[in-house]
């Protein structure tokens, strides 16, 4: 059971609130990664406020719960905001992001005991392997809940991803729904300029995955795809969703470029961003 089970209209409101959190968090410490965070907001909001079955009473082993792993850990702002808004910890703690003695490290970690986080990530390419292990543990435990993992598209340049991509179909890890944030951008430019990813559908299909595609910035498209992915579990193949997103989605001057990958807005830019992310400001942290 999802503890929130929100309607599309409510999800949109929540997404707007999460986006406000993201730009305020990175602005406050003049560092962090707003671009990918804004792009993946609708996906994480969908998982935590509609799709996944979980309890906010956090237990590391997550038995009987759907699990989510963030492999591209640099989009920690969206992860932290969604975890807090979902009820894992107080939203006031978002103000400690990237500050000394915080549980909200620059990249997510279990080290400080932040509820909702089950693995450290940031060094790229490791999350798919971890998710596969967690999914196989669920099978051993007779636990029929699901494992979700999000990767960046630039992250697919890491070789470990393809070790894992080969392993999961061979071992019929069919309780796993991986998603690639296909925003086409990475630090040094577009993925096509830096190291072209080619036909990802063909690549993953050749490895034996059940491949789906969706628009990650439209709940109307994304939610049915996530339902379809859930329905396709248990059929012998792992599932991967190639999710098109726009980096910086929701803030016009951050969209369509890799330039806001790891740059924080200044005071003036923050004000413009917040005006575009209209939501009841009383619920800001």
């Amino acid at each position, binding site marked *: 059971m999802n503890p929130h089970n929100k309607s599309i209209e409510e999800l949109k409101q929540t997404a707007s609130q999460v986006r406000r959190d993201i730009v305020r968090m990175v602005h406050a410490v003049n560092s962090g990664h707003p671009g990918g965070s804004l792009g993946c907001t609708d996906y994480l909001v969908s998982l935590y406020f509609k799709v996944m079955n979980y309890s906010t009473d956090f237990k590391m082993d997550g038995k009987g719960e759907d699990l989510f792993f963030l492999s591209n850990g640099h989009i920690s702002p969206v992860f932290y905001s969604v975890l807090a808004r979902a009820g894992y910890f107080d939203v006031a703690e978002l103000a400690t992001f990237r500050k000394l003695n915080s549980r909200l490290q620059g990249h997510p970690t279990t*080290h400080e005991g932040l509820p909702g986080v089950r693995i450290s990530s940031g*060094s790229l390419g490791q999350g798919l*392997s971890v998710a596969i292990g967690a999914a*196989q543990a669920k099978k051993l435990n007779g636990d029929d809940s699901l494992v979700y993992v999000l990767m960046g598209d630039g992250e697919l340049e890491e070789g470990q991803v393809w070790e894992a991509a080969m392993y999961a179909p061979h071992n019929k890890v069919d309780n796993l729904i991986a998603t690639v944030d296909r925003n086409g951008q990475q630090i040094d430019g577009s993925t096509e300029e830096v190291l072209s990813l080619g036909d990802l559908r063909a690549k993953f299909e050749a490895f034996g995955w059940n491949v789906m595609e969706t628009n990650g910035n439209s709940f109307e498209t994304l939610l049915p795809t996530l339902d379809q992915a859930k329905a396709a579990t248990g059929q012998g193949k792992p599932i991967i969703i190639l999710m098109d997103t726009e980096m910086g989605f929701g803030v016009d001057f951050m969209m369509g470029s890799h330039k806001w990958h790891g740059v924080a807005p200044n005071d003036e830019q923050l004000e413009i961003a917040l005006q575009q992310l209209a939501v009841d400001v009383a619920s800001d942290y």
Partner: protein
Amino acid sequence: MKEYTYTEKKDTRSGFGAGLLELGRTNPNVVALCADLVGSLKMGDFIKENPERFFQIGIAEANMMGIAAGLTIGGKIPYTGTFANFSTGRVYDQIRQSIAYSNKNVKICASHAGLTLGEDGATHQILEDIGMMKMLPGMTVINPCDYNQTKAATIAIADYEGPVYLRFGRPVVPIFTPADQKFEIGKAVMLNEGTDVTIIATGHLVWKAILAGKILEEKGISAEIINIHTIKPFDTEAVLKSIAKTGCVVSAEEHNRIGGLGDSVAQALVTTKPAPQEYVAVNDSFGESATPEELMEKYGLTENDIVAAAQRAISRKG
């Protein structure tokens, strides 16, 4: 000198295989992973009895470390198996982030460590693994000396919650520790009490330290011999107590002299009461192809090297 004898020689990796088999029967949470080296790691018996608890990963060690980390999240106790080089250097960052920093209960089991892997040569003979692993915060590093101790260590680490690096080897070596000796993580084992020099050895060098002790005795030198199977956490108390008595020390290991057991001993000494120390270790170099015996000779890791080091250490006493 206390008498140590043996009736049988076996490889320490077989001790690991035997320990894993026993865990398969006694601990339902133990699972095993291997990167295409089942025979070399002696995992066959475990797999035969527990096929559903074995994960063949293929030649993909990075993926293996990640999957092991993930398995812990469902309450499993994963034992990963491959050669020491591929267990550490090849996957340092996977271990660092997904296992050590994430504090996952993974047991990284590494065979064919050091020069005694032999003819395959330097690409496979890692001499830096103890250093890499002990530098990771929260990592326990264990390097047992014979079949019995490796079996006991394999079993003991299942009851310890946290990441462990368990290092063992390929060649057959004398079995001289008691089969029923309890393995206590972090607790040095006193093998012989002496008064003139302390010899602190780990892994395959422990037996050589015993041989050295006998030679020293013939020369009228009384050696205290300590088996330090756990490099981290380091039994500083036992080590310092012994050196306080003998006044000097030899550290002996099948590892680079930089970053290994010797440096743990030196750190304990310089931060308390310095005393002369001599290293028996590989002198910051790679290995090469040859028989294990030839390599131990060429790189200075024999009982005679320990004897010479002991004499040097004694001569430096104030």
